[in-house]
């Protein structure tokens, strides 16, 4: 991204630690993690399994509470932000409710908020069109392919128009072609909506392709190893993927891992 972008801090992770378990059988998932996420930035948390990247995402969303340090989002703690419904989340599995149609799944957050059907059906219809599922809005999840289910999950995460989108390996269970399509769609969505996106992944090319910055994490215990700025290029998927700069970046990221492996 361009250097003249205003770097306003959205999420501040300050000396955060997370220890699971007790009575001597403790596992340190995260140890003294510090970094910031800027507004409208696409940040990836990249690392091997066990580096605590999913835990970190859950701490931001107030689905877990850190055992040390603190997280600030804007001027608030995660709980306040969650209660104001300023998060959208997408998990690795689509996590749809099997008894709800595509449309009803997308409307779930608005329904939970207590909005009326008349208020939100226009929003859900628009989201359904955006993720290209217009013909499938009355389908049940089991009638959809994995990629379509994940589109529903993304539309659901956007339904309350939250400023922050948290994504926990959302594409890692999908085939290469679907993954590629959804990656492009996600970049489009970010361009249109300017959301702050925190994206957990273990795929180096995916992180390099999508991110403005990559937080490289190491495991046992989970720490921030390094933070890399990525200069995103313009061009088609193939152009970017085949460019020298892309290869150079992935090599650099891979180098971070080799350093401690």
């Amino acid at each position, binding site marked *: 991204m361009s250097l003249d972008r205003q770097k306003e801090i959205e999420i501040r992770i300050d000396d955060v630690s997370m220890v699971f378990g007790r009575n001597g059988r403790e596992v340190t998932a995260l140890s003294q993690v510090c970094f910031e996420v800027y507004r409208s930035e696409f940040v990836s948390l990249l690392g091997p399994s066990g580096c605590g990247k999913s835990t970190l995402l859950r701490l931001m969303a107030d689905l877990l509470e850190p055992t040390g340090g603190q997280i600030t989002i804007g001027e608030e703690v995660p709980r306040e932000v969650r209660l104001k419904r300023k*998060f959208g989340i997408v998990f690795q599995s689509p996590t749809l*409710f099997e*008894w709800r149609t595509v449309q009803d799944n997308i409307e779930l*957050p608005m329904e939970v908020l207590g909005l009326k059907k008349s208020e939100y059906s226009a929003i859900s219809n628009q989201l359904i069109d955006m993720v290209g599922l217009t013909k499938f809005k009355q*389908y049940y999840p*089991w*009638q*959809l392919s994995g990629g379509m289910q994940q589109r529903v999950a993304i539309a659901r995460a956007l339904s309350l128009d939250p400023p922050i989108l948290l994504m926990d390996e959302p594409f890692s269970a999908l085939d290469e072609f679907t993954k590629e399509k959804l990656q492009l769609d996600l970049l489009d969505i970010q361009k249109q909506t300017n959301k702050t996106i925190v994206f957990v992944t273990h795929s180096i090319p995916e992180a390099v392709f999508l991110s403005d910055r990559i937080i490289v994490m190491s495991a046992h215990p989970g720490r921030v190893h390094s933070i890399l700025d990525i200069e995103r290029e313009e061009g088609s998927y193939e152009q970017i993927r085949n460019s020298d700069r892309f290869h150079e970046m992935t090599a650099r990221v891979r180098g971070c891992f080799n350093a401690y492996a």
Partner: protein
Amino acid sequence: MSGWLRKGSQGGVIIIWAIGVLLVWEAAAWYIADVAHVLAPASKLPYLHLVLQTMLDHWSTLVEQGSITFGNSIVGFLIGAAVGIILAIVMSLSRAVELTLSPYMIASQMVPIIGLAPILYGIIHDPSLSRVLMAGYVTFFPVAINMLRGLQSIKPEQEELMRLYAASVWTTYTKLRLKASLPGLFAGLKLSAPLAITASIIVELMGAPDGIGILMLSSLYYGSSQVYMFWSTILISVVIGLIWFLLVTIAERLITPWQPEFRPQGRSEG
């Protein structure tokens, strides 16, 4: 390829199946009576048309006694289902309650109903109440266990999602857990529907003064002259059991339409 097969099949298969059973039955009865010349052939397998004739002749008695039995068993089934649902909900809310109640519930199912029925009837001496209680007794357990499994079947991410959207405990329970439990609930209801009818009949065999079970028992005592009556009572029981099972299945389709087996279309591509 399987489109027309699957669409037309449900009704068609049932009709073919029914005709097949009737033909095999008549053929077998004919073989036993007129080919093999078995002693007292009608008590082995009577001609179906003679059984149906008896049913028509004694229609009013059969309906009268049948409605006593099935009326009671349905009341018992509904009460048992309600108890099962409440137990499942209570157990889903507290692990401690679940651990406390499970052994009693499992032990309760170890008591043979054929032994429990006369004890119960001996204590309360009311045939209707005994039938209701026994039907409820066999119903509550499959309902509670299957529904509880459904209530506990939700994925951690589904709960995290509700938490992320700051859903209240009540909203999470009704919009997530209860919905997820419905397929299990219906599995339990379908299991216990025929059991409830059998349980009521067993009460009658063990000493009630009326009901289809009494007709069954007395026609057995009076030997070959009543053999068609005996088979009529069996047929009636089967038909009522099937109707009741069908009603539960229809309710299941209406209340849980998302289950794959109720959907004609296949998985879509994309």
